[in-house]
């Protein structure tokens, strides 16, 4: 009951704050720019002549991954900066005092805020992702092979990041938690690219950088799973060995074990947040 009330409050907050408008503006800009780019792609002339429709689809599939990365970045920034003030901001301002003095368990308050943010983040990913698919279909006629699974993994990535941002928000200040969460998200992505290069070069040591970072923070792992669901299956065959560590192609779908690990990771970090928030003096 408390959790549902708090989830509703969090959604209402998200919908009434300026961060939403920033998110909408960024998304619309990205959709418009990508629509323009994809439209140009259809009749593109290269040194080898005009791009065939098959080639265009292939390039579109890569570009879609690139644009979806942009979207996932917007989702990450948006939720991290919404999750940042959720705990520390309210404690610092005194807003938490009147609420926590009510007959509520702090874990229920946390669960409510988390559910609200999850609903917001997933809703954003679903809407913006779907809009992007429609733009690509209208311009070059490409439709990803597994759109639902891909968007679900992208939403999972958002959930992982906002859970981390909430944990940080229970121990450090508002600004710091948002910045650290987004910084870690970026660092894991870079580590993933480095690991990809390592794999392509057959260097196990470098490849391990990517693997370890994907276990420590599953955002990049989920992102690779999502890319695999968005890209044209023929792309891997087509590009073959030449695509040494290309960051916008994914070799394989995610394993069940990795997905389970992600669930365990979220539960663990959530539990840590509950303990930290429960013990905190407000």
């Amino acid at each position, binding site marked *: *009951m*408390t959790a549902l*009330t708090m989830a509703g*409050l969090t959604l*209402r*907050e998200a919908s*009434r*704050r300026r961060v939403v408008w920033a998110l909408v503006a960024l998304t619309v800009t990205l959709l418009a720019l990508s629509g323009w780019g994809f439209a140009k792609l259809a009749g593109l002339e290269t040194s080898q002549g005009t791009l065939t429709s098959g080639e265009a689809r292939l390039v579109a599939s890569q570009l879609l991954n690139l644009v979806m990365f942009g979207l996932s970045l917007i989702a990450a920034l948006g939720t991290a900066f919404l999750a940042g003030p959720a705990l520390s901001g309210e404690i610092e*301002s*005194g*807003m938490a*005092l*009147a*609420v*926590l*003095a*009510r*007959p*509520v*368990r702090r874990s229920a308050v946390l669960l409510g805020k988390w559910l609200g943010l999850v609903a917001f983040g997933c809703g954003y990913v679903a809407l913006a992702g779907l809009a992007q698919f429609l733009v690509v279909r209208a311009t070059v006629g490409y439709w990803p092979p597994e759109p639902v699974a891909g968007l679900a993994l992208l939403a999972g990535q958002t959930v992982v990041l906002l859970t981390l941002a909430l944990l940080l928000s229970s121990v450090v200040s508002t600004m710091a938690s948002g910045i650290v969460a987004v910084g870690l998200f970026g660092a894991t992505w870079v580590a993933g690219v480095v690991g990809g290069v390592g794999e392509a070069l057959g260097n196990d040591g470098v490849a391990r950088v990517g693997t370890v970072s994907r276990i420590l923070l599953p955002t990049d792992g989920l992102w690779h799973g999502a890319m695999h669901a968005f890209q044209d299956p023929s792309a891997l065959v087509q590009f073959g060995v030449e695509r040494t560590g290309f960051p916008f192609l994914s070799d394989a779908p995610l394993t069940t074990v990795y997905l389970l690990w992600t669930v365990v990771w979220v539960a663990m970090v959530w539990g840590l947040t509950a303990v930290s928030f429960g*013990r905190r*003096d*407000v």
Partner: protein
Amino acid sequence: MASDTAAAGSAADLVAALPPSPAVWCSGLRKRYGRRVAVDDVSFSVARGEVLGLLGPNGAGKTSVIKMLLGLVRPDAGEVMLLGRPGKDPLARAGVGYLPELFRYQPWLTAAEVLALHVRLVRARVPASEQHDCLELVGLADRAADRVGAFSKGMQQRLGLAVALVARPELVVLDEPTSALDPIGRVDVRDLVLALKARGVTVLLNSHLIGEVERVCDRVVILDRGRVAASGSLDELLGQREVKLNLEGVDARAEARLRATGALTRAGDWFTVAVPTDDAGTRVPDLVRDLVALGVRVHAVEPGRISLEERLLGILRHRPEDTAS
């Protein structure tokens, strides 16, 4: 099984027969922030329907004590009971309304939405009309549909009062409730506390304004450097009252009569007599009657009482550590 039920029944009867538990009970509360001891072995209780004032200088630990009572700050040691339930149980706060010292409410909600949120958090059934009455009580009825973000500090504090009162509390905790209010607002708060008292609601009031406390509180707890420096009813704390008389023609018999009433001090024609607190109100008129009968001319009789402010300053200036050094 049947005997279990019977035992449970008799236990329930026993509990029901107990006198009502205090609204607030705390024992041995301690809190340390780093090296600084903020609260050190604080114990007190507030009876149901009582208005208790928490007094003390800045940094005495008043707000920390209140936050520990409400489960907002974890005490390092000590126990809390609220309305008969252990403080660790969130349900102990079901009948509590709280206005924090640092009051801030969701700026993206309207005043009416803030009240509705708190009613939902308490799981109380308070009709919208009653919630609106609450806003009216604090003078915000015409701002119910406005976002809190546009409110002045004083209006936010008034909203905080409405939040504290909206879910029909049995215990109201007000931490500096008039810090942002103008003189009219202060009088409003005083009347509000008196109205709560008349309805039998327990009030724990933390305020710097000693006059405010003196007018509305039944009992006072004075905190200093995290410890209870003094506590008791106003009569107990303020001790004896005194009466000053301007007299002419006082002879030995009249002086003996004056001494029979209480300790006597004299400065010229002014005589100051201490009147014990157990006085039922007859000692002073009796004294004046007898003095007149003894031929003394009575020019003036002025009641005097040590103010709470003087008493508070007296307690704080004569700290045990200070006198020891």
